[in-house]
């Protein structure tokens, strides 16, 4: 993730340095600039003025857009950087570019770090059986994520049962069952066309009767524009009362990530997001957009096709890697 943005940020730092240290001076209009320079020498500081970095900020905004950061979110980040940096007095021994990049770092950490919590601690504290509901649009990888999650929880010493709440899509039952067989985990499912809430409810009952720690509940993929299916999701949320709801989306998603994240969060409030297909993606902007619009943390990344390809999302590490 963020490979491309990382490159852009390096050139951004250089740009700012060049622009601020050698402000472009129109030949006939060197008065103010001379005065400024004189002042810099006298105080040992340069002031980062807006005009000098405007071009660099536009470049930065383009870089964010190319990294799939949603356009309004990108503008907010630029605004944050601008207000942080413009007018800032920087010692001439320091690089204004470094100051600007630090401002970007802060802005990104603030957006991406929103609401982060200690996942393992939270899992330990939640009442048993703990129902985790997975929501998201079609094809983002909910079922695969559930299988990975089951594997992860078992690795932590918890027992797990899977509930197939996708009673709609052809092949959904077989898909989850095959994962269940491979992981040797019980799968509760009903016939196709059944009531998803009832399946998950049954799985909770099963977990209660058999002292199983976690119920991982799959749901049918749905587009946020389908009123019927979003109403059904609301109902599932109301009836099942999950301890944790995780929104699953793919890291390759572009500008629309923000719309669906918002709608899903409204229908069945989420506690965090899992971003899948992170191994396919070089941009990573979806992480920024989704965290911003939901105000909920990105918790995990799906990074491949095997059960162990589930990584904890650490915003600080990511941002630092980004700014390399």
């Amino acid at each position, binding site marked *: 993730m963020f490979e491309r943005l990382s490159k852009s940020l390096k050139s951004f730092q250089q740009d700012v340095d060049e622009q601020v240290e050698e402000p472009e001076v129109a030949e006939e209009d060197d008065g103010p600039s001379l005065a400024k320079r004189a002042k810099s020498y006298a105080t040992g500081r340069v002031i980062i003025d807006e005009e000098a970095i405007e071009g660099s900020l536009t470049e930065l905004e*383009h870089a964010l*857009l*190319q*990294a*799939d950061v949603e*356009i309004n979110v990108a503008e907010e980040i630029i605004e944050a950087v601008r207000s942080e940096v413009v007018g800032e007095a920087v010692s001439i021994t320091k690089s204004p570019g470094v100051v600007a990049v630090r401002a970007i770092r802060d802005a990104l950490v603030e957006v991406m770090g929103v609401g982060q919590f200690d996942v393992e601690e939270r899992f330990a504290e939640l009442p048993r059986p703990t129902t985790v509901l997975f929501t998201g*649009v*079609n*094809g*983002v*990888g909910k*079922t695969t994520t559930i299988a990975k999650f089951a594997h992860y929880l078992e690795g932590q010493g918890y027992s797990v049962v899977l509930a197939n709440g996708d009673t709609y*899509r*052809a*092949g*959904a*039952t*077989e*898909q*989850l*069952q*095959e*994962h269940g067989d*491979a992981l040797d985990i019980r799968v509760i499912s009903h016939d196709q066309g059944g009531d998803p809430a009832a399946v998950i409810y049954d799985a909770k009952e099963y977990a209660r009767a058999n002292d199983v720690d976690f119920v991982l509940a799959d749901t049918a993929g749905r*587009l*946020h*524009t*389908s*009123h*019927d299916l979003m109403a059904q999701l609301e109902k599932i949320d109301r009836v099942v009362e999950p301890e944790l709801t995780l929104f699953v989306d*793919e890291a*390759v*998603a*572009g*500008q*629309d*990530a923000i*719309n*669906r994240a918002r709608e899903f969060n409204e229908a069945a409030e989420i506690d965090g997001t899992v971003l899948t*297909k992170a*191994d*396919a*993606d*070089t*941009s990573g*902007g*979806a992480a920024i957009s989704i965290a911003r619009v939901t105000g909920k943390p990105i918790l995990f990344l799906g990074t491949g*096709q095997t059960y162990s390809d589930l990584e904890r999302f650490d915003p600080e590490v990511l941002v630092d890697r980004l700014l390399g």
Partner: protein
Amino acid sequence: MVLDDLGGSLRETLRSMRGQGRLDEDDIEAIVKDIQRSLLKADVDLDIVMELSERIRTRGLDEEPPAGTSAHDHLLKIVYEEMVELIGESTVLPLEPQVILLAGLQGSGKTTTSAKIAWWFDRKGLPSAVIQTDTFRPGAYEQSKEMAERAGVEFFGDPDAEDPVEIATAGLDATAEAEVRIIDTAGRHALEEDLIDEMEAIEEAVDPDVNLLVLDAAIGHGAKEQAREFEDTIGIDGVVITKLDGTAKGGGALTAVAETDSSIAFLGTGETVKDIERFEPSGFISRLLGMGDLQQLAERVERAMAESDADPEDWDPESIFEGDFTLIDMRHQLEAMQNMGPLDQVMDLIPGLGSNLKDQLPDEAMDVTDERLMRYRIVMDSMTDDELRNPSDIGASQIERIARGSGTDEEVVRELLQQHRMMEQTLNQFRGMGEGDMQRMMKRLQQHGGGGLGPF
């Protein structure tokens, strides 16, 4: 639908400039800014956006509008032409025997798309088959088999086999009688080297006529890299954009088209096998510019009519142009309408109606309208043949009986009768305008501009 926002915002900017005889640099800049922002919001690649806006800017300033054309119309034409240039023609898919290979990322919708394309060719009179080669994803075989059943097409797959290349070649032998064979493959992305190699092996073994890249409408700038990799590996002849019934605009697909120097073949607009449309660039852009999409609407209407035709009662859609418009006709109309798909999608296609009217409706209005159609049909089921043929003779006591019989209330029955009267009136306006020529009828509808759905 696609690029809706661009349509809305652009329409507004252009409208504000309508009366002007000349557009100055600032006017053009304002339009270019609108276009840029909308395209960026639609996930179109930044470089493409910049190139496009530069061309519109240059042409807008350099070209003199021809005599008799307002500056506004001229700029509209430039925008239109440049958009056509950007989006390209639709992929050529002759109606003849062929093998089509589908490729794409995990979860982009290949399996659903393979059944849809098979259904599409099948409906055009070419018996089709789906060959499922995804041996990796659990449940892929079952999903594909069931979707093929729903599409009413032949299916080949082998849940116990492990080599996709073997399944593909065996599948071609087994489905030799089908004229169009669609080969579905496992999802993979550009950075999975072994899977990309596997893709190459499948392509070499089956030597398909057409390779289609299936892309989720929501994909971002990653589309470029993915498209390039698939292009380098197997060569891409066309792109299918899926999940366009969401809010994603599909700009990533435009990037892919540019990157693979190919075109858009199909659009996926829903979860059933019928939710597929052939990509029509001119219609697509007309819709985008708020001019409606006559061609696609006509196609949908004709298809829906054809389905109602198969009705045992042997109803002739053109009979509505002759004699009385009865409740029986109306019921067929409603059925035809439901066959066309969700109302909001149909409305998108209607000139002068689409997004303008939809913007004014509350979100749930469309669903409610579908429900109401359903209720009408139930009410009509409780009417006698005589009542259906002569709705104007239905009196208060009959209304009471019909309401009771259909488990609705009298209000609904009256509403239905009122609706029938309205449709009858609208229809009278269309009578005598040629033998059921849908295209002309729709043009007529456009001239009546937003005057209501009429019988459709």
